[in-house]
């Protein structure tokens, strides 16, 4: 493909790929320090209980035990990610008065070996007074339900009401109205690398260094500052390679706070590593919820109104769950024009581990309901499911009053391309096969600032050295999604050099400018803009110098490409990049060339500066006797703006489909009075490589004015359509309807029989 770019847009191997593949690349999990202790939590066996007393005397007698801490040893107060609303900062390092879920840490030990730490945990005696618990949001809001946090009446943690247009009028004018109810199950995060942190406190200087498996070094710095009552600047967070986050590593978790507290107490480095059972039972997951949705359409399929109500199972704390509540509403409206829309949402506290941001942040359950309902409506109205979507698509410049504006928008060409490709790709279906569609869109980072940062949303610093090599500093977090590669590609493109010229220094709060971290698909756009600006400053110096040396006047444009700086229209006239760098540094009194960049979206609405979007089609086959559903083939037509790294973008899309298929088919966390019943990879079923369908990905590139080189989101959008596309394919194949995700075979078989019964009854009624 002809392109004006020499680095971006070309499939580029991950810059960390060699280190990670050979095992040389170090994760926090791999690290140890001399004299290091191992920390482990004493956890509550009860979902809701008062802590009467904690006796650590026996544990402290065990040789090798160096410290035991309880809630009384926590100097700081509560913390959370909703720092703009302090009452929602409800997390605490170690429970001091009561526990709110099974597995909540009440104390922690530090010992010289893991075995001793484990034994010591069993020796800590905790006396509880058991309180009644509440485990379903509909129970939690009842007047006689036990209160989980005293100040939150009816256990309501957060609410949302959003409305535009005139919804009641919209329904009145509609030719067709239907209402559906759904219950969507929570989904575990299951990162390959568990939560773990290594803290080292220097008693002499009073400064703390912590290595942690986090999505946001800055968020962790803020959380630790609150929990430890320290200055942000006295806490240095270093993020080594991270083995996945998916939203579950935004919050400051007890691995980090406890490692820090134990290190402060003992004066020795302390490492806390969760095991897989702790991951499943005590770390954050995707929210479960009950949902009611109503749609009104004109005869021709035009959507006139939609109303959606949800009540979510928030668990014991807030995390980023209140943000998920907002996004669950907003992204349900995409990528369609819905002139009249109303959304009411409630997040309840329950005695379970809490729900937070998880890939597709908020959108996944509500998009499921909306897309599944759209197919039911289409079928009853006799409209083709792709046609009904085509009828209602957003266009460039579309605005949802008071909420968002969509600038670049390739969804119409995406759907047209889909319609064309489908005909060639799947001309004929086999018996019991069906095709399901779902549209999708997602943000390129959030504009909302509930973390209340005074800093720019993303920062970067570029230093160009005498030999032309570049040091690039940013806190932006690569957590496996490939941002380190994107970051150096953007820097290289802007300076007209190669990625091999750049050394990246990511994820260290002590050396790099703030970035809010890897969530909401924000790094490419937000950090990309900061990097482009930083590199652009240096580039300007080089261009100005070259122009002066060439003796050209101001009207002549120069470009930096392929390590040369030259006149765009007279490429033979110019200098080498290296020559210009050397000259510029000499002219600069020997100071390396420094560029600083920062980015904060302005005047872009409430949600995001840009939206990736597209349409997915899924072919699935149903076994009518067993209920087993096989996802056979996926086709995605995608607009993610200018693609920076096609290899990375494809990896992100495939990863989203993978996690989406787990949500669609197998992943469920049954819970019995607060107890997770399947806390292992053996029992919690994750889709494996051999279960993955073929994925065909077609791009419809656009240019978004907000993105670096026009780039936007590619990491999360495609998770949301996966489950509804699958459910719609099953609906197409056999008419079975589902009021939940997780189409396990037994559930499917029941739905097939229900559908067969209904079809027979209908046939009878006709006679």
């Amino acid at each position, binding site marked *: 493909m002809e392109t004006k770019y020499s680095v971006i847009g070309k499939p580029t191997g991950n810059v960390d790929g060699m280190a990670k593949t050979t095992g040389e690349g170090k994760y926090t999990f791999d690290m140890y320090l001399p004299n290091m202790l191992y920390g482990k939590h004493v956890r509550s066996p009860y979902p809701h209980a008062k802590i009467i007393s904690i006796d650590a005397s026996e544990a402290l007698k065990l040789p090798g035990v160096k410290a035991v801490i309880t809630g009384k040893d926590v100097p700081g107060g509560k913390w959370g990610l909703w720092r703009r609303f302090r009452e929602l900062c409800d997390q605490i390092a170690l429970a001091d008065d009561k526990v709110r879920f099974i597995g909540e840490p009440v104390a922690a030990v530090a010992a010289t070996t893991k075995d001793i730490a484990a034994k010591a945990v069993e020796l800590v005696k905790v006396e509880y007074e058991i309180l009644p618990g509440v485990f379903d949001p509909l129970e939690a809001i009842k007047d006689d339900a036990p209160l989980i946090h005293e100040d939150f009446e009816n256990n309501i943690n957060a609410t949302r009401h959003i409305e535009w247009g005139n919804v009641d009028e919209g329904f009145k004018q509609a030719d067709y109205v239907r209402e559906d109810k759904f219950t969507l199950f929570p989904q575990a995060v299951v990162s390959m690398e568990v939560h773990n942190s290594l803290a080292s406190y220097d008693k002499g200087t009073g400064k703390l260094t912590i290595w942690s498996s986090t999505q946001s070094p800055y968020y962790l710095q803020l959380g630790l500052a609150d929990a430890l009552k320290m200055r942000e600047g006295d806490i240095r967070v270093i993020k080594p390679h991270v083995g996945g986050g998916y939203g579950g590593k935004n919050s400051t978790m007890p691995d980090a706070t406890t490692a820090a507290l134990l290190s402060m107490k003992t004066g020795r480095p302390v490492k806390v590593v969760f095991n897989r059972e702790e991951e499943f039972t005590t770390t954050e997951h995707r929210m479960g919820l009950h949902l009611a949705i109503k749609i009104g359409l004109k005869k021709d399929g035009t959507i006139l109104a939609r109303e959606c109500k949800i009540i979510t199972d928030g668990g014991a704390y807030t995390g980023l769950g209140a943000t998920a509540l907002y996004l669950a509403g907003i992204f349900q409206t995409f990528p369609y024009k819905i002139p009249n829309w109303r959304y009411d949402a409630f997040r309840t506290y329950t005695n379970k581990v809490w729900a937070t941001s998880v890939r597709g942040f908020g959108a996944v359950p509500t998009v499921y309901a909306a897309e599944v309902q759209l197919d039911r409506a289409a079928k009853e109205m006799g409209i083709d499911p792709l046609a009904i979507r085509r009828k209602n698509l957003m266009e460039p410049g579309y605005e949802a009053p008071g909420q968002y504006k969509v600038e670049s928008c390739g969804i119409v060409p995406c759907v047209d391309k889909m319609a064309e490709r489908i005909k060639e790709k799947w001309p004929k279906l086999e018996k019991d096969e069906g095709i399901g569609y779902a549209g999708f869109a997602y943000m390129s980072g959030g504009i909302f600032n509930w973390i209340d940062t005074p800093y720019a949303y993303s920062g970067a610093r570029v230093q160009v050295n005498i030999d032309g090599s570049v040091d690039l500093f940013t806190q932006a977090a690569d957590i496996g999604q490939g941002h380190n590669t994107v970051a150096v590609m953007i820097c290289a493109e802007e300076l007209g050099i190669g990625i091999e010229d750049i050394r990246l220094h990511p994820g260290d709060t002590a050396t790099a400018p703030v970035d809010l971290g890897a969530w909401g698909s924000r790094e490419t756009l937000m950090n990309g803009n900061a990097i482009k600006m930083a590199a652009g400053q240096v580039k300007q110096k080089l261009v100005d110098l070259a122009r002066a040396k060439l003796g050209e006047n101001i009207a002549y444009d120069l470009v930096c490409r392929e390590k040369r700086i030259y006149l765009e229209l007279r490429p033979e006239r110019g200098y080498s990049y290296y020559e210009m760098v050397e000259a510029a540094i000499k002219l600069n009194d020997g100071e390396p060339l420094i560029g600083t960049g920062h980015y904060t979206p302005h005047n872009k609405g409430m949600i995001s500066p840009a939206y990736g979007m597209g349409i997915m089609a899924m072919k699935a086959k149903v076994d009518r006797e*067993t209920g087993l559903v096989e996802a056979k083939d996926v086709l995605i037509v995608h607009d993610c703006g200018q693609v920076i790294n096609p290899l990375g973008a494809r990896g992100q899309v495939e990863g989203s489909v993978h996690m989406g298929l787990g949500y669609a088919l197998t992943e469920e966390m049954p819970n019995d009075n607060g107890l997770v019943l399947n806390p292992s990879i*053996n029992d919690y079923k994750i889709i*494996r490589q051999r279960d993955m369908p073929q994925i065909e990905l077609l791009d419809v590139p656009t240019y978004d004015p907000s993105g670096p080189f026009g780039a936007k989101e590619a990491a999360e959008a495609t998770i949301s359509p996966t489950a509804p596309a699958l459910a719609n394919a099953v609906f197409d194949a056999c008419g079975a309807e589902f009021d939940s995700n997780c189409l396990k075979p*037994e559930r499917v078989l029941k739905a097939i029989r229900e559908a067969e019964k209904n079809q027979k009854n209908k046939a009878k009624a006709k006679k």
Partner: protein
Amino acid sequence: MKNITNSFEYFSPKTLEEALKLVSQFDKEGKDFKVVAGGQSINLVMKQGVIAPEAVISIKGLSDMDYVKFDEKAGLKIGALATHRAIERSSVVEKKFGVLAEMEHNLSSVETRNWGTVAGNICHGDPGGDVAPVLIVLNANVKMAGVKGERTVPAEDFTLDFYETALAHDELVTEIQIPTVPPNTGVAYTKFSQVVGDFALASVAVAITLDSKKDICSDVRIGLGSVAATPLRAKKAEEILRGKKITDDLLAKAAQAAMDESDPTDSVDASGEYKRELVGVFVKRVGKEALERAKKA
């Protein structure tokens, strides 16, 4: 929360004799010990804290027990240390006992198959194990050795209850013996799981031998996995088919009988009732496949 670590003594005998002495000695001392070959089952339950033995005896060093041998007369002999992967990739297994290779191909992951042994799998006594139903219909025997001598039991009698086998504490399984498949015999197996390679919600193996005219079912064996406290031989279902010409109707009757014989329990993934239905579906499907194969045999 359970500990994932506990310390234990570790022994790695180099000969069968040495190994048998150890198990006999530990058994007499009343020591809580476990024998490990590939470790794919034991490591899991130790990690989960289900068991915490004082001693672990690894027999991985008994390299002369790592074999897969075949001759027409004696049939197939699988040494105690032969891995799943060795069976899956053995050309003689593929040619003469294709159903074994098919079973192995969906047993967990390649990594597990590279380490785990066939003998270890049945010694674990998991009613959901992949291997046992196939061994049962192939009429396999399990050979065991102790300091006092050797003995052999049929595969169908090897598992006694949940994680309990006929193997005495002071014995080791040394070999699995599978007789040559009789002429006019078709064998088929299906494991039903939600994700490929997972434990079965139900599994069914069927071996059908036809008479010389390839008309009447002269013998049949049906093995079920995951639907009772042990792998099961569905004898009543077999009775319905034996000596008859197998038709779809007859298979349906046999399927019903197998459902009645199975005794599945509810689990996180599925109800017992549903698992019982699966038995019915797969006795029909696998039975049909075995019949087709017998006709072609």
